């Protein structure tokens, strides 16, 4: 075969994309270890050299310093910059800048090149075992390119933001080490040329999120959150693995390209492919926090805010969506599975939105909104609108990153204020302690509003376009598509799709409401910080605000990436469906396969749909604006406990508690009580093993008792034996 058009371009350096962050990780990791490690005495047991050397530790993990999100840390530790701060500040974001630059270069190379099939860059043979030939190979195509751009781009911004946000943290190099490592794995995930390389990234990002959530690990809560995230993700990964097993068993390969070629061998809608897709989706549900595996994401807010922005909003959590898009060749021939994906997404969207309504911790609000928005994306990819899903993924990356970073600088400011006034009682993240921040940080306020309108789906902000496209797709698929013909849980596909559509709209309404609520409580109304702290409130430094501005622009203009035809017909503002064309070679076939005979929506219908969506968004904002009274809000400490449904929502429908009671506790109890104490110690060890030994010893005792020492006994036994022997012989005669 002739060389691939990209083979001779800069694209052959694609492996530098992940390599750069990896280098960053190694450097920063080395620095943080070097600063922390003090060699122990030669003989650890010997009681020599009692010199205490703990004070010298630079990063001893999460104690002291300015762990903004870490509640109740001690503030008396002087805010001293890490001795390697300078190097880290250059290396950490630096590698991201380079990586982003390379990504752009490759992107333009691709724009130039005429490519029909993805460019595979095989690094080395990884796991050769018989017919299973796994290569460490990277796959460059439209989809992975888009993801790379988002990851490196947004990632770069967030790295820069972190320089300011984490500046005083004793774990500064460690933080950037983890962050770089995360980017490395994330790029591996999206660039992988087969499921296993993707899986490496998949688990790797999970690992990094574990490390970063538990970054201030001296807080049990943080460590718990990290562990929870990893374990819940592992439940998903179990599904992912099983899916891989099945694919290999039936296709004989795990390379995307090969699978795409051989996907025809599956019976469309057949049991096997459906099972594969459902198992895959289990993995996605874990990674992308969908019902039933979403519970880890809100807890994940225990990590530093930039982490929440990068990992738990912009990139990692969207991996599930990416995976479905990546596996479109399979999902598109498994309608039932696709419907399941979409329905789960819709339900998650509405469910998370309800919880978002009553959260007070600003980050928790955003967390649930993220869950909800991810649900939206799954609705998109579920109904086979892969472009729409990815589109929403991108816009969401912009505005949700913006929201998180914005909230981050708010928290930062709040915290700075509390820190200056030695106030440890109050929670720097609780909206009830904020209020009226717009007067102190107008830039942030503006940018946050942009993001809010975007997420609420108000034109012309980016979110509007992506969300609308998804809704339109759902609506259009409801007739004549294979999905409509399939049945899920006894319901005809079309019914399910309409249901999904309704749920999605409802979710949109709630989204508008809780986002407005957040803005009101945070930025509007009177300030509740307390008079002592007030003078210390001011805009965050530019190293933090700068990235916000960039993201603001993106959230505002992101929609131009994929303007729907109906809009461009009305007002020719830009190119039509750019993204759709871009992704066409990757997901085009699958999309049309799912769309099947579904009639394309008429312009009027579409305009109607758009109208509804916008109306709902506006309505939501209006409701919140009119019904909520920031002025009436009291500070957290003064707040009265909520009651009724509000209480239920504040406690997130008690899902965590339910899981704990139905899954965690039973398994633990059974393992301890039944398996260990019962089977292992009780039956096997005590009864069988030691029992046998005891029995032997008992018989020994009996035997030695027979040895009475009296000749009479001995003679008797002798004679009895003799009789027995003689009987045996007599028998023989």
């Amino acid at each position, binding site marked *: 075969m002739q060389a*691939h058009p990209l083979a001779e371009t800069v694209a052959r350096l694609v492996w530098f994309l992940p390599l750069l962050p990896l280098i960053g990780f190694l450097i920063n990791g080395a620095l943080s270890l070097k600063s922390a490690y003090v060699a122990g005495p030669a003989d650890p047991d010997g009681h020599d050299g009692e010199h205490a050397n*703990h004070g010298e530790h630079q990063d001893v993990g999460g104690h002291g310093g300015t762990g903004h999100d870490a509640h109740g840390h001690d503030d008396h530790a002087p805010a001293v910059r890490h001795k390697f701060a300078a190097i880290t500040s250059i290396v950490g974001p630096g590698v991201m800048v380079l990586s982003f630059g390379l990504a752009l270069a490759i992107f333009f190379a691709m724009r130039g090149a005429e490519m029909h099939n993805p460019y595979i860059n095989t690094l080395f043979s990884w796991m050769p075992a*018989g*017919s299973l030939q796994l290569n460490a190979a990277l796959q460059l195509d439209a989809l992975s390119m888009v993801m790379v751009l988002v990851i490196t781009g947004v990632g770069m911004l967030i790295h820069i933001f972190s320089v300011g946000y984490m500046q005083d943290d004793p774990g500064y190099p460690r933080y950037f080490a983890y962050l770089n490592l995360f980017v490395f794995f994330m790029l591996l995930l999206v660039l992988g040329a087969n499921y*296993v390389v993707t899986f490496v990234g998949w688990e*790797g990002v999970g690992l990094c999120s574990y490390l970063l959530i538990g970054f201030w690990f001296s807080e049990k809560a943080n460590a718990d959150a990290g562990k929870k995230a990893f374990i819940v993700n592992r439940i998903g990964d179990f599904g992912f*693995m099983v899916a891989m*097993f099945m694919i290999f068993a039936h296709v004989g390969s795990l390379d995307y390209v090969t699978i795409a070629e051989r996907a025809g061998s599956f019976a469309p809608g057949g049991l096997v492919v459906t099972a594969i897709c459902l198992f895959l989706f289990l993995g996605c549900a874990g990674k992308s926090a969908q019902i039933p595996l979403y519970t880890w994401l809100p807890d994940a807010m225990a990590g530093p805010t930039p982490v929440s922005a990068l990992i738990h909003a912009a990139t990692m959590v969207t991996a599930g969506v990416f995976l479905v898009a990546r596996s479109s060749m399979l999902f598109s021939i498994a309608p039932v599975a696709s419907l399941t994906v979409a329905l789960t997404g819709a339900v998650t969207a509405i469910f998370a939105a309800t919880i978002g309504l009553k959260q007070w911790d600003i980050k928790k609000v955003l967390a649930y909104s993220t869950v909800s928005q991810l649900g939206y994306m799954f609705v998109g990819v579920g109904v086979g609108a892969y472009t729409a899903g990815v589109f929403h993924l991108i816009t969401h990356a912009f505005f949700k990153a913006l929201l998180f970073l914005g909230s981050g600088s708010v928290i930062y400011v709040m915290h700075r204020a509390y820190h200056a006034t030695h106030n440890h009682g109050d929670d720097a993240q609780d909206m009830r302690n904020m209020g009226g921040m717009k007067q102190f940080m107008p830039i942030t306020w503006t940018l946050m509003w942009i993001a809010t309108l975007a997420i609420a789906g108000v034109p012309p902000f980016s979110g509007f376009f992506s969300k609308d496209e998804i809704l339109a797709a759902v609506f259009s698929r409801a007739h004549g598509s294979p999905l409509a013909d399939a049945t899920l849980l006894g319901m005809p596909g079309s019914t399910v799709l309409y249901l999904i559509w309704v749920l999605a709209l409802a979710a949109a309404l709630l989204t508008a409401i809780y986002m407005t609520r957040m803005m009101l409580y945070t930025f509007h109304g009177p300030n509740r910080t307390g008079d002592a702290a007030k003078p210390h409130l001011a805009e965050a430094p530019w190293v933090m605000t700068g990235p916000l501005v960039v993201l603001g622009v993106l959230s505002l203009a992101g929609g131009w990436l994929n303007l729907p035809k109906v809009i461009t017909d009305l007002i020719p503002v830009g190119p039509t469906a750019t993204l759709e064309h871009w992704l066409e070679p990757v997901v085009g076939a699958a999309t049309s396969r799912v769309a099947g005979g579904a009639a394309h929506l008429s312009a009027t219908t579409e305009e109607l749909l758009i109208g509804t969506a916008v109306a709902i968004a506006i309505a939501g904002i209006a409701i919140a604006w009119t019904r909520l009274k920031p002025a009436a809000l009291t500070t957290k400490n003064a707040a009265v406990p909520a009651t009724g449904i509000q209480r239920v929502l504040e406690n997130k429908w008690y899902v965590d508690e339910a899981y704990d009671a139905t899954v965690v506790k039973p398994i633990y109890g059974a393992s301890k009580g039944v398996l260990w104490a019962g089977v292992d110690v009780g039956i096997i060890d005590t009864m*069988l093993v030691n029992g046998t030994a005891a029995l032997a010893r008992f018989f020994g005792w009996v035997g030695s008792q027979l040895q009475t020492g009296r000749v009479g006994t001995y003679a008797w036994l002798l004679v009895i034996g003799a009789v027995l022997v003689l009987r045996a012989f007599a028998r023989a005669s």
Partner: protein
Amino acid sequence: MTAMLNSMGYNGWILTLLLALPLIGAVMLAVQGSTAGTADAAAKVSSARKTALLFFLVEAIVSLGLWWSVDYSSAEWQAAVTVPWIPAWGVYFRIGVDGIAVLLILLTTCLMPLTVLGSWTSIKEKPHAFYAMLLLLTTGMLGVFMSLDLVLFYVFWELMLIPMYLIIGIWGGQRRLYASLKFFLFTMLGSLLMLVAILYIGFKTAGADGVPVFAYDTLVQSGNYPGNAALWLFGAFFIAFAVKVPMWPFHTWLPDAHVEAPTAGSVVLASIMLKMGTFGFIRFALPLFPYAATHPMVKSTVIVLAVVGIVYGALVSMVQPDFKKLVAYSSVSHLGVVMLGLFAFTTQSVQGALLVNINHGISTGALFLLIGMIYERRHSRQIADFGGIAKVMPMFAVMLTIVALSSIGVPGTNGFVGEFLVLIGSFRTQPIAAVISATVVIFAAVYLLWALQRIIYNPLARPENAALKDLNMREVGLLVPLIIGIFWIGFYPKPLLDRTHAAATRLVVQMGGVPEANTTVATPGEGR
């Protein structure tokens, strides 16, 4: 490299040398010990450990040549030696290796120096005897991996027993007497039944002269035993090996032995001795009795036991208060994976099983070494006694985290590669078992991360922990090779897989499976 080694006739003498060196070392230590009568304790310790380390290092270095000198694709035994021992009884000193054996031998030779370093300061009583025992043990273990004569194999098999018994019983913890005897009796019960079986087949294949035959190859070729006999014989071998593996429900000696043994003992036990069991299956039980091994009843039983072991071991280790016990039960789980892979009889699963063998050796060995390090500082293995020590022992925390991740099987570490191959291979023949076993990825994360959190994370509550010192240079140094191994196998397992492919394929074929050549699936759009 290969050429250079061949020019030295390396393959001719290496195996014998590997067996002899430790013996010489043991004798030297015995002499040292009895002559150094009056020297003060410290001097004794240092002299003993230096000698031991020297011998182990030499052993490790000379053994490395096997990596290149052996032709892994050949069906012949490599570096083979045959010397008559008791010809009248058909017993010969027959040794030789294949890819599987070489990897395990290298694992052994490379791990032993680390165990010496791991005991560097912790063994203060009777150091000479201790290290002599370690050396004897090494000969025994290497012998098992090399022997191609069933009697020789049995002798080496038992040879391991006494040193380990003494190591646990003399230098062990509080309940060492119970643990050591339990270990001994479990193993002996199995091995004596195996002895009967060995004799039986030896005489069954005896020639006209009535001299029994114990040559491995001959027995494998002429291995046609009447159905029931085959089942009984396999049963005898099975118990011997299942106890060593250990398979559920023959595992209960393991937690006790591990917990009571000194660090070096635990490391050797977990990293190498447990491999004896699986190796026994690969080398002897399966090829000798293919009929029995592939008998549906037998196969399903083993698979079920393996799966039970996997899940059960994970669940039970989750609730262990003692870190060493936790790791011990996790071994039950991991070795269950190996057994599953072996009895799935596919190229991937068998190669994966062999890899898990090695991985478990590295990861669990490292875990025990780390436990030994904090035990030396804190004199406790109770997880509850720790917490937040990442603050005072950052290096320790990093090492423990890496090792734990490899044991969990996070991609990029060795643990993933092995488990993945086993499971994906097993799924092809044993889908249900594979799916159930795949839950190990969840449970492993649960028990290890939870333990990790309670040890190195969480608040640094206890004052005695706040005074802990971080690892010293020796400890870091002895961990580094293991860490390297973890990532090397994680990122580039190809060399190992290439070395086991031929042997694994042979086994699969013997078990009536289809051989799979290393054939790449053509990937269109390939960039070069």
